[in-house]
Structures are given as structure tokens and as C-alpha cells.
């Protein structure tokens, strides 16, 4: 019988995607639907002196125009995570209004919404809204935001800090260890701001139905139930059972579509006001200006080593931008998703991280593919390679010296870090060994020496990362400030004919759940994949769920489905035993049949299903039906890890970096579909390479974004990357039923420092020790010039 787990099954959803038959929010057209456009601030910081909508209101096709004065002014979108000051002061949490009231706090902040019969007319009328502003000085850099006299984002507090926070060992102890260290490597740099750039821009339709007083919100979100919860309970105060949130196909998110955005709440409110559906779809420039960004940390770090190259202590101070308002998960990103990974894959005995998180006159910063872990990995892996150079130790060797020894989490216990978490299982030496082997590391070093003689600049960069996925045990995150639980729901409904509908609270926006989930469901039930359908993205169909981010879908969402399958098999066995007139203990389930052990008596899954729904000859006292829903709350995070190695050539004349090879050996635990895992790694690596070499959100002194379109924001293209060479080791996760760790973000986490390490390595003989990302030709050339 055909089995599917571990097979490179082609993605079922690609059929409709490749034919242009996907159903994205913007594809939906409802009867009577209106369209909207926003009037957005051209200033980063300004006082609104007046708003005149009179001319716009009389424009052709206008249905309604609202400003903060018009009833929606009381509402705001909430933040979902609270991180308090280390002195106990509560996190400073400004109201995030649906439309700006008196003040503007970032370019692109919405001042008014114009609703009209067509999108064109809405745009035309929006241009007629006259807003007069008094421009004020703005601050976009998180470090400058904390300098005395910096322009304040929110006037109610004495400075721009939203919170400050620390994790790890006592700071004094870490400082003392650094004092005594044989060698200390120091780094100051910016992990710069990037824009997520999902291919589908955000799109919403709110549809209020007077009959039944119900709303439907179609939204391009990564987590429909969470949006419903935030919208109902926090943003608008409307009854949750009256709201249906639907997100059919979503064209990528990378984090940016986790959050509850002001436009979603405003459209929902406005639809009831006008009694008609309202649509809004962001354009690309609006996406740059209003989608939550990623990264934006200013980092100062010291790592101390003993004379054998063993790490003795690590101390880091960071300024991490929050943006103008706190986005849904923003406070968690530079703290609990970041500091908790400072152990890396090393035995560092003493660690301390301090984070100051200021407001800035920019759009919010929140989780972007990897969320806090790429920033942690970048720091650890850059500083390890820099230290290796300074101590004249091979960078691979320095890593081998410091690795946490292998542990499987079953026979050997999990590894307790200095920064709160306990790793599940790991074998960090194995992935580096394999990575070096794939590359041919020693041969490369010889080629490099040879190339240098001819003036050719070749470099190799290593990164050995770990990350935390499968977010997360609810009690743990609750203690850390999360305002939600992070379990998942898996509902398996066996239809009378034995066909299976699986309802998952996870949400696919490119990941391939419809394929992967069906693979393991089919295997566990011993049926064909064609008999399994995966349903997601509709709160009226799926009981509940927390959505997809943090590489959680398979490890948390998949586990919830497994729990329901177990219940189905358990109940099915009772029915089978009754039909076969055998004891339950004498049955075994394989290949879609319950069999009486040692006989040829059996009953198929389909017959049991039918019996469950046509219970004429049925076990006494047993409920009819074969339909179970389960909540799965994980007992720990999962910890994928791996080694990424980049080889670059730098053009000595222009400073242009060419990525020649990229080797990735990842360990994501058990693999359900190797093709999809490879795809996730490829995509993640390219995003990480994008940050390393190309992508950067640039603000000018007034807080204007200089990179608001693809003419100025450089995305990686196919010809910017070589074929990515992948391999895997497999260290199963010991605490979830499938033994999976998660693969959605690993590529973006491991790759960035590998590339930058390679560039620095290529120039190291010239005396270059560091280059600010993105490593543009200009920056490389200037770094070379500075050493002349």
C-alpha cells in the first residue's frame, strides 16, 4: 500500500495556483460592494491642524468619508504581548487609533477613509480631502530615539522607551567574566530594517449583514481566529459569535499578515455604518509604508574567550525599534523570541542581554520570517567568525570547540540554557561536519589562497544556527507576557463514506498544508490522500485556531490533528470489535483495516465509518458518529538547527559581491515532505541573502521612506542566487507525535550571517573586519578603501 510520509508528494494546491484559479481576497466581488481609499500622511511626525472633506464628499460616486471625528475615533487595535520594564514599570502601550486623531506618527498613517462606488472614484475623491499639517521633527533610529531631547513619539511619557528588558545571568557576573577573559571580541552594528514584501498585498472586505446582525470579514491574514478575537474583544467590542472571518488563499505573509491592522477594524466598522460591503486592497507603496517591518536592532556586543578558545561570557546591549505603535506581537520579537536564543549552539556559561525598545516615527516593527531568531543568529555567528579571525583559529574549529554535545532529549535530557529555555534535542557537530563536507572546505581554503595570489577575492562564511519553533506552550508564553494561548486545534471529521475532512486552525499562505497534512492523515488512517481534504481559513468551518507563524503548523497544528486521529482510531476499534465479534485487544489497525490478529477477519475503515453513521448494529452505549476535535498545547518549543555555508567572490574594482555557492545542511526533525522542506529552505535562504546583500528600508532625516517601491528597494532575483545545495540530518523532536521541528524560517535564520561572514572573509587579508549589512557594492568598496 502506498504511503506518503517522507515522500516528495507534489503540492495539491499548486494546481489552482498555477492556473490562476486561487481565491484571494481581492478576487472576491460581493453584490453591492463598495471600494475604499485612504488619505495617508506624507509626514512622519506632524500635528493635524484641520481636515476638510467637503469637496471630496460631493465628488462622483462617493458613499462616505470618515475621519477620527466620525465615531470610529474611540476604537484602536490592541497589542497582544506585554513586556514590562525591568524595574517593574508596566509596558508603555499607546492607543493605536484606527485613524490618526491629532497627531501623525509615521509616514503613511491613515487620516481618513474614502468609500466610493469604484476603486478609481475612491482614489479620485481621496485626493480632494484637504488636510493641513504642521510638520514636526521626527526620529527613525531606535538609538537616537533614546537620546536626550529626541523628538517624542508619544507625548504622555518622559522618553520614547516602550520598555526595557533583560535576560540571562546577572550583568555584573557577566561583566566580571569578560574582564578576566583571555580574549574579548567586540561588535557594534545595525541589524537593519527590512520590508516583508509578500507577493499579495494586504486585502480586506468587510460585509455587514443586517439580517442577523452579522459581519463577515474576508482578510488576507495568517490567523483568522486570532483576528476575530482581537477585532471583537479588543478593537470594536462586537460579539464574537456574530463575526465570521474568512481567509481563503493568501499570497505569502512572512509574518506581516499575522497582525490585526487598523484597516481591518475600520472596514468592519464602516460596513455597518453604510450597510454595504467595503473592500480595500493595498498597493505596493502602501504596503511598504504600512505593513509591519522586520529587524531594526542597533547592537553592541562583547564575547569573551579563554585561552583555548572556549566562550566564557557574552554581553549584549540593543536598541530595538517598535515603530510608532505596538503591533500585535512586536514586544515579544526582540525579547522572548530573541534573547532566549542567545545560547545558540554553544556552551556559553554566562550570558546577559539588555534590550531597550523605543517608539520611533516609523511604521511598526514586528515578526518577520524568523522573528528575533535571525537577529540572534546574526549576532552569534558574526561574532564567532570575527573572534576566530582575531584569535587566529579556523572559524569551523572555533565552533567545534564550543558546541553543546549531542543529546537526543530521550536518553540524554534536554539542554538547559542560561536564557530560560530548554532545548529539545540536538546534534550540532553533525550538521557542521556534513556542511563542511558538502562544501569541500579544505579544498576551498586552498583555492582561496591560490585566488588571492591572482588578486581574486574569494571568501567562505559559516553559520551554525539554532532556532525556536512550534510556538508555544501556553503557560510558558503566558508567564512571559503573551495575551493569548498558543495551542492549536485539529478537528477530524470522518464522513459516513469514509472520506475525511480535516479542519485545522493553522493557516496556509504558501506552506503547502493541504498536501503535507493530508500526507500524514492518509498514512495514519491507512487511506488514500485523495480521500482526505484539509480545510482552513474560515472561522465558521474551523472551530478555533491560532494560525500560522513561528514554524508552528506541523509541530503544533499537526499534533492536534494526530490527537483527533487517535480518538477516531480508538472509537473505530470499538465499532470494529463489535462488528467482528472480537475483543478490542485482539484487533490491530493497519492499511485501513481493523484485523483480528492471527486471522483473516477484518473490517475496513470505510465500513466502520458507515456503521458509525448508520448505527443499526452498534456497540451499546457508544455515541454514533466519527468526528473529533482536539486542542494540542505543546510541552516545549522545538529547536531546529543547521549549518549554512556561503562562498562569495568580491569584485575588487566595484565591490560587487557574487554569491557563488550556498550550502545548507539543516535538521528540522522528521521530514514529512522533503520537496516542501527544500522549498521552504530555498525561499528562506533567498530572503536571508536578500537581507545580507540587497534589501534595506531607508529613511531620510525627515522620516520619509526612500525605498517605497521596487525601483529603490532591492529584492533578490533569481540571478542573484546560485543553485542552493541542501542536505539534512535528522534529530527527531522528542516531545511531539510526529517528531517534527519546523522548517518555515530556518533558511532565513541561518543564511544571512553566512553570507556576510563570507564577504568579510574575502576581504580579511586586506584588514577588513566588519561590514554593515546590506553588503552593497558601495559599502564593500568603501570598506576596502578605508584599508588602503
Amino acid at each position, binding site marked *: 500500500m502506498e504511503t506518503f510520509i517522507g515522500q516528495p508528494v507534489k503540492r495539491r494546491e499548486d494546481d489552482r495556483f498555477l492556473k490562476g484559479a486561487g481565491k484571494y481576497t481581492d478576487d472576491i466581488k460581493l453584490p453591492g460592494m463598495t471600494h475604499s481609499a485612504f488619505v495617508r500622511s506624507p509626514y512622519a511626525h506632524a500635528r493635524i491642524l484641520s481636515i476638510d472633506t467637503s469637496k471630496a464628499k460631493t465628488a462622483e460616486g462617493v458613499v462616505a468619508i470618515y475621519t477620527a471625528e466620525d465615531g470610529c475615533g474611540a476604537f484602536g487595535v490592541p497589542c497582544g504581548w506585554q513586556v514590562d520594564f525591568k524595574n517593574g514599570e508596566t509596558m508603555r502601550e499607546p492607543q493605536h487609533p484606527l485613524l490618526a486623531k491629532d497627531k501623525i506618527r509615521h509616514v503613511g498613517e491613515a487620516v481618513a477613509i474614502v468609500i466610493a462606488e469604484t*476603486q*478609481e472614484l475612491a*482614489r*479620485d475623491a481621496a*485626493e480632494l480631502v484637504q488636510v493641513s499639517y504642521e510638520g514636526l521633527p521626527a526620529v527613525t533610529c531606535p538609538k537616537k530615539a533614546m537620546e536626550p531631547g529626541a523628538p517624542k513619539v508619544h507625548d504622555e511619557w518622559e522618553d520614547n522607551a516602550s520598555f526595557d528588558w533583560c535576560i540571562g545571568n546577572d550583568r555584573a557576573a557577566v561583566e566580571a567574566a569578560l574582564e578576566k577573559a583571555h580574549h574579548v571580541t567586540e561588535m557594534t552594528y545595525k541589524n537593519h530594517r527590512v520590508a516583508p514584501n509578500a507577493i499579495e498585498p494586504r486585502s480586506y472586505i468587510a460585509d455587514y449583514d443586517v439580517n442577523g446582525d452579522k459581519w463577515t470579514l474576508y482578510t488576507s491574514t495568517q490567523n483568522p481566529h486570532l483576528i476575530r478575537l482581537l477585532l471583537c474583544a479588543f478593537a470594536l467590542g462586537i460579539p464574537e459569535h456574530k463575526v465570521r472571518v474568512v481567509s481563503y488563499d493568501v499570497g505569502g505573509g512572512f509574518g506581516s499578515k499575522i497582525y490585526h491592522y487598523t484597516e481591518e477594524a475600520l472596514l468592519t466598522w464602516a460596513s455597518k455604518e453604510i450597510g454595504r460591503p467595503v473592500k480595500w486592497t493595498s*498597493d*505596493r*507603496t502602501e504596503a511598504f509604508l504600512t505593513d509591519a517591518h522586520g529587524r531594526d536592532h542597533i547592537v553592541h556586543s562583547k564575547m569573551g574567550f579563554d585561552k583555548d578558545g572556549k566562550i566564557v561570557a557574552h554581553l549584549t546591549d540593543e536598541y530595538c525599534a517598535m515603530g510608532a505603535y505596538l503591533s500585535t506581537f512586536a514586544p515579544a520579537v526582540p525579547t522572548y523570541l530573541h534573547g532566549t536564543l542567545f545560547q545558540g549552539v554553544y556552551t556559553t556559561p554566562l550570558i546577559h542581554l539588555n534590550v531597550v525598545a523605543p517608539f520611533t516615527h516609523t511604521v511598526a516593527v514586528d515578526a518577520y520570517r524568523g522573528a528575533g531568531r535571525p537577529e540572534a543568529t546574526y549576532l552569534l555567528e558574526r561574532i564567532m567568525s570575527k573572534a576566530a579571525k582575531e584569535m587566529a583559529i579556523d572559524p569551523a574549529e572555533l565552533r567545534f570547540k564550543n558546541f553543546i554535545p549531542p543529546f537526543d532529549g530521550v536518553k540524554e535530557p534536554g539542554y538547559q540554557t542560561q536564557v530560560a529555555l530548554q532545548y529539545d534535542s540536538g546534534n550540532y557537530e553533525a550538521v557542521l561536519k556534513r556542511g563542511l563536507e558538502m562544501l569541500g572546505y579544505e579544498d576551498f581554503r586552498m583555492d582561496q589562497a591560490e585566488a588571492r595570489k591572482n588578486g581574486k577575492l574569494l571568501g567562505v562564511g559559516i553559520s551554525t544556527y539554532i532556532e525556536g519553533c512550534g510556538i508555544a506552550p501556553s503557560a510558558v508564553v503566558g508567564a512571559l507576557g503573551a495575551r493569548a494561548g498558543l495551542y492549536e486545534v485539529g478537528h477530524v471529521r470522518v464522513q459516513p463514506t469514509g472520506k475525511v475532512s480535516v479542519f485545522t486552525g493553522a493557516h496556509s499562505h504558501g506552506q503547502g498544508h493541504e498536501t503535507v497534512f493530508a500526507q500524514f492523515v492518509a498514512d495514519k488512517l491507512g487511506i488514500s490522500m485523495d480521500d482526505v481534504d484539509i480545510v482552513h481559513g474560515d472561522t465558521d468551518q474551523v472551530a478555533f485556531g491560532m494560525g500560522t507563524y513561528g514554524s508552528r503548523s506541523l509541530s503544533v497544528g499537526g499534533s492536534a490533528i494526530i490527537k483527533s486521529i487517535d480518538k477516531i482510531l480508538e472509537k473505530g476499534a470499538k465499532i470494529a470489535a463489535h462488528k467482528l465479534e472480537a475483543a478490542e485487544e485482539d484487533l490491530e489497525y493497519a492499511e485501513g483495516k481493523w484485523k483480528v490478529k492471527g486471522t483473516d477477519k477484518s473490517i475496513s475503515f470505510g465500513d466502520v465509518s458507515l456503521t458509525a453513521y448508520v448505527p443499526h448494529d452498534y456497540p451499546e452505549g457508544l455515541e454514533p458518529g466519527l468526528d473529533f476535535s482536539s486542542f494540542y498545547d505543546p510541552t516545549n518549543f522545538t529547536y531546529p538547527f543547521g549549518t549554512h555555508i556561503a562562498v562569495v567572490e568580491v569584485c575588487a*574594482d*566595484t565591490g*560587487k559581491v557574487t554569491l557563488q555557492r550556498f550550502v545548507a545542511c539543516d535538521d528540522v526533525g522528521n521530514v514529512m515532505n522533503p520537496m516542501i522542506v527544500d522549498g521552504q529552505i530555498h525561499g528562506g535562504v533567498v530572503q536571508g541573502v536578500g537581507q545580507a546583500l*540587497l534589501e*534595506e528600508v*531607508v529613511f531620510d532625516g525627515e522620516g520619509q521612506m*526612500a*525605498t517605497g517601491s*521596487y*525601483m*529603490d*528597494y*532591492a*529584492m533578490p532575483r533569481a540571478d542573484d542566487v546560485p543553485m542552493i545545495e541542501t542536505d539534512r540530518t535528522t534529530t527527531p523532536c522528542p516531545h511531539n507525535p510526529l517528531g517534527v521541528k519546523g522548517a518555515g524560517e530556518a533558511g532565513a535564520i541561518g543564511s544571512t550571517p553566512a553570507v556576510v561572514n563570507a564577504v568579510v572573509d574575502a576581504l580579511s587579508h586586506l584588514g577588513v573586519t566588519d561590514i554593515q549589512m546590506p553588503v*552593497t*557594492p*558601495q559599502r564593500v*568598496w*568603501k570598506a576596502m578603501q578605508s584599508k588602503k
Partner: protein
Amino acid sequence: MIPAKFEYKRASSVSEAISMLGEHGMDAKLVSGGHSLVPAMKLRMSRPEVLIDIKRIPGLDIITEEGNEIVIGANCTHTQVMRSELVQKDVNIVYQAVSRIGDIQIRNRGTIGGSLAHADPSSDYPAVVLACDAKIEVEGGNGKRSIDAKDFFLGIFTTALEEDEIITAVRFPKVANGTYFKFYQSASRFAVVGVAAVKEGDHVKVGVTGVAGTPYRATAVENAYSGNGDAAEHAVDGIDDIMSDHFADEEYRAHLAKVMVRKALEAVN
């Protein structure tokens, strides 16, 4: 990304287009491939009330050999120019430049006439027409004229075209030894620096785009040229409006200009 309202008209001849231009004046814009104009209209930075589509005017999309010249019709797309055997054989420098414009979609739509009329300071064609001493053939209310490339570009997005004039063709003298070097901006892939060099006897002619607000002939390089790459040091002599952005500030752009000129000079040697 939705443009302001406009009226669309299609011209079926050059004279009809000229009279439409005369009728609507400043309110009208010609459109050919639309790949410079439409993006600006979507952002509402350009908002013509009337669009006059010239793309289907017969005879403006052909490439011919006329004695010692190759004449490229204004409506020829970059792809068409790239694929032309005449171009590849007799003005290979044009082929080299055009094959590096944007990507396939851009090359399938964008035209030589639109590119020159638009005069984007980072576009590729200007360097080539300058180095080749090409002539830009135009027709307007006052009849036909031919503008020397060196007189055509007046500034950022500014040319010697009169309001009612249309480019009909570009006339390139055949080039035996020419080359184009481009260092592209990583987001848009326009030129940060583009250098065209044509060698005739002992002399070299060098056109530079991307560096200054106006593309220029690097006369200081041409004068200092002595058969090797050293004259490249003069690539930005006398240029006082070197452009600057987050990809390349003035210092780096000037450096790149020298690097690209050096490569071009070495290639035509």
C-alpha cells in the same frame, strides 16, 4: 496604483499625432511602450488628460540600412532592436546596451523613441547615441529636423524636443568597434553607471549615462586617450552634478564611472 482619469486616442499617422498634440498642447502626452509613462501615471506623478497612442503608426517600427547608417524606427521595442541582425552586425554596441535594459517584459514593451524622449538620467540608450554620434529624427508642426545626439539631452527628463514634436527614428552611423559597460542599480536595474565607447582610428568617443543629471560625452577622457585605459581617470572631469542615492553616493559613483570607462577603453583597444 490607479492613474487619474484620462482620455485615450490612437494616432494612425505621424501627422495625425502631431495635430493631436497641437490640439491638446500641454494636457496631452504621447504613449508608445508605456513603460516609463504608465508607472508615473499609476503613482499620479504624471497626469495627462489625453494619451495619444503612437504605437501602431505604420512605418515607425522598422529597422533599415541606409548606406553607411542603420536607421531604427522610434517605435522599435528593445527586444526588436536586440534581435535585429542589422543591429547585431553593424551597430553591435546598440545590441550590447539594449540587451541589458530592464528585464524581458520591459524589453518587450519599451521603445527607443520612448526611452530617448523620456531622458531618464539612468537609462542606457543615451550613452550609446552620444558615443555613436547618432542623429535623432523628429517631426513636428514646423516640419522635420534631425537633432545631433550631443544636442538632444538638456537635463533630467528634459530634451530638445518641442512640445509638438515626435521622434520618428534614430540614425546610427555603422560602428566597427564599440562597447557598452553597465553597472546596474540592484533594485531597478537601471544604470548606476553606463559607459559606451566607440573607437575610430586612434580616437575614442565615450558616452556616459547614470552619473550626472544629463548624460554626457566624456571629452576629457577622449582628449587624454592614448590607446590604453589610463584616460579613465578623467571620466568625471568637469561634471558638477554627480548624482547621489543610497546605492551610490557621489564618491562611489565617480569611482564606478572611472572603472566602467577603463573597462570600456580596454575593450575597444
